[in-house]
């Protein structure tokens, strides 16, 4: 039982990270109808830019290496780069393609993902780096002593951070004027235009926020697995999350992330041994496939409202 709990909690905590990346997809998909294949590349770009800045900043400014000042300065610079990248993408790549079919936009973002990966590695180099957030990856003592369960304090911290971010974005969507406008644009571009909502501003905001989300996800994942090219593939784990949760739902991205995180770890531990192990990497896709058969719009996806 304790072992089960340990696996479950570990899975849920990593699920929050999937949710975070999925959120980046949902934001853009909701507001502009673009499935942004480059989201994974953006996560990679963000993490690499942050690490790059922490490396070069001490040389430029004479600040102590590994200090808090360097950390936050690098964070701000990386954030600015991400927002600029997001807005530039909207302006340069997607605006000229307004009114084109979704598949064209999708192809454009595939191209974009190669470009973003290339630019990131061109600037900062392609070698694998470590990323230190200052939180140790050790089991929490309290849980060990009292319940005999191993929970990583890093996982807990990452989950809490992602949880706060996800929660505040959900509130932003639901209760602010801009959030409402975002949802309006997601529903009907033309009607939004007709009442004077400037689509370009809204899209710029969305891409900026997606850039921010990519940065947070990149930092957390980079700290856990190292900043390397594989980060772009890890981000694709968001796909089954989206299929489960629905492409247009913020709560769906969260719940989907948790389900995927928990089920892949549980499956690895309990089902894995029967089929030779290593099923963690593909199990989510199987789950998503099964889910597609039952409920194609996802758990929380917006159903098409059809009036008869």
């Amino acid at each position, binding site marked *: 039982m304790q072992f089960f709990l340990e696996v479950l909690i570990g899975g849920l905590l990593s699920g929050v990270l999937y949710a975070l990346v999925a959120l980046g997809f949902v934001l853009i998909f909701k507001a502009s109808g673009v499935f942004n294949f480059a989201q994974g590349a953006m996560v990679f770009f963000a993490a690499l830019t942050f690490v790059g800045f922490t490396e070069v900043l001490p040389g430029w400014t004479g600040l102590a290496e590994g200090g808090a000042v360097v950390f936050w300065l690098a964070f701000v610079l990386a954030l600015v780069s991400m927002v600029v990248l997001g807005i530039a993408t909207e302006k340069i790549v997607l605006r000229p393609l*307004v*009114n084109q079919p979704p598949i064209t936009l999708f192809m454009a973002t595939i191209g974009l993902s190669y470009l973003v990966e290339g630019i990131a590695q061109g600037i900062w180099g392609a070698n694998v780096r470590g990323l230190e957030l200052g939180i140790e990856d050790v089991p929490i003592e309290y849980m060990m002593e009292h319940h005999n369960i191993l929970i990583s304090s890093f996982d807990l911290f990452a989950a809490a951070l992602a949880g706060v971010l996800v929660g505040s974005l959900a509130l932003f969507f639901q209760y602010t*004027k801009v959030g*409402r*406008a975002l*949802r*309006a644009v*997601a*529903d*009907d*571009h*033309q*009607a*939004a*235009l*007709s*009442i*004077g*909502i*400037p689509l370009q501003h809204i899209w710029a905001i969305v891409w900026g926020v997606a850039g921010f989300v990519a940065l947070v996800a990149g930092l957390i994942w980079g700290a856990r697995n190292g900043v390397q090219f594989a980060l772009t593939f890890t981000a694709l784990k968001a796909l089954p999350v989206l299929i489960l949760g629905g492409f247009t739902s913020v709560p769906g991205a969260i719940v989907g992330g948790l389900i995927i995180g928990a089920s892949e770890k549980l499956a690895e531990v309990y089902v894995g041994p029967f089929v030779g192990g290593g099923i963690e990497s593909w199990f989510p896709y199987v789950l998503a496939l099964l889910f597609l058969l039952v409920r194609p719009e996802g758990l929380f996806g*917006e159903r098409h*409202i059809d*009036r008869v």
Partner: protein
Amino acid sequence: MSTEATTAGVRADPYLSINNIEVIYDHVILVLKGVSMSVPKGGIVALLGANGAGKSTTLKSISNLLRAERGDVTKGSIEFKGARVDQMTPNDLVRRGVVQVMEGRHCFGHLTIEENLLTGAYTRRASGAEVRNSLDLVYNYFPRLKERRKSQAGYTSGGEQQMCAIGRAIMANPEMVLLDEPSMGLAPQIVEEIFEIVKDLNAKEQVSFLLAEQNTMVALRYADFGYILENGRIVMEGEASELADNEDVKEFYLGLSSEGRKSFREVKHYRRRKRWLS
């Protein structure tokens, strides 16, 4: 002397004026072939015509939603309160007080009625209290919306959606509303209800209306002035009452005839040319 004064007066007066515009979609499809019309301040003007005559295109060229459909005003000009508006973004135009209610309602289906209305105030730099006031004003004109305020707009009836769309436009605090086909797909009783409210808004809130309608009978009853559009040209214009009495309008748009009832067998071979084409 008096003529000069009147000309000057007329020139200063038109509130919204469209001067000989030509609209082409996709660089090839010529839809409007030189349309001129004007709407006075505080008026209700009806733009009538059959399917495909160019009514919606005219409204969209005013509200600048044309470009989103790859249409372009290639000739002529559109002025609102003396300033050219044909190259403005819809956002600027809404700020200046011109809002379009699109054909087919176009409510935000997944937002509640109240959220729909609130999005209408997006362009306003208004305080929460002012927006609240506008919301109350809209609920005052459309009591049905107040009842349904927590429902998702997609699940409300067609009439409620039309009301929601008009209410949403009113939330922008407009001087002029371009109303495209408000009667589409609605029961005659609801159509009357909506037109009554439009008349009311016009009288009490001093909102001018330009409405495109196929339902000539109702439109002429509520409008002051009317234009008839056919194949991208204005073929007739006049006071609403004059138009309603005109023999041709009666025959072609109202289905009435001076010869009284006709049998449908005759109607089939009925090919008289409209007088305005000769």
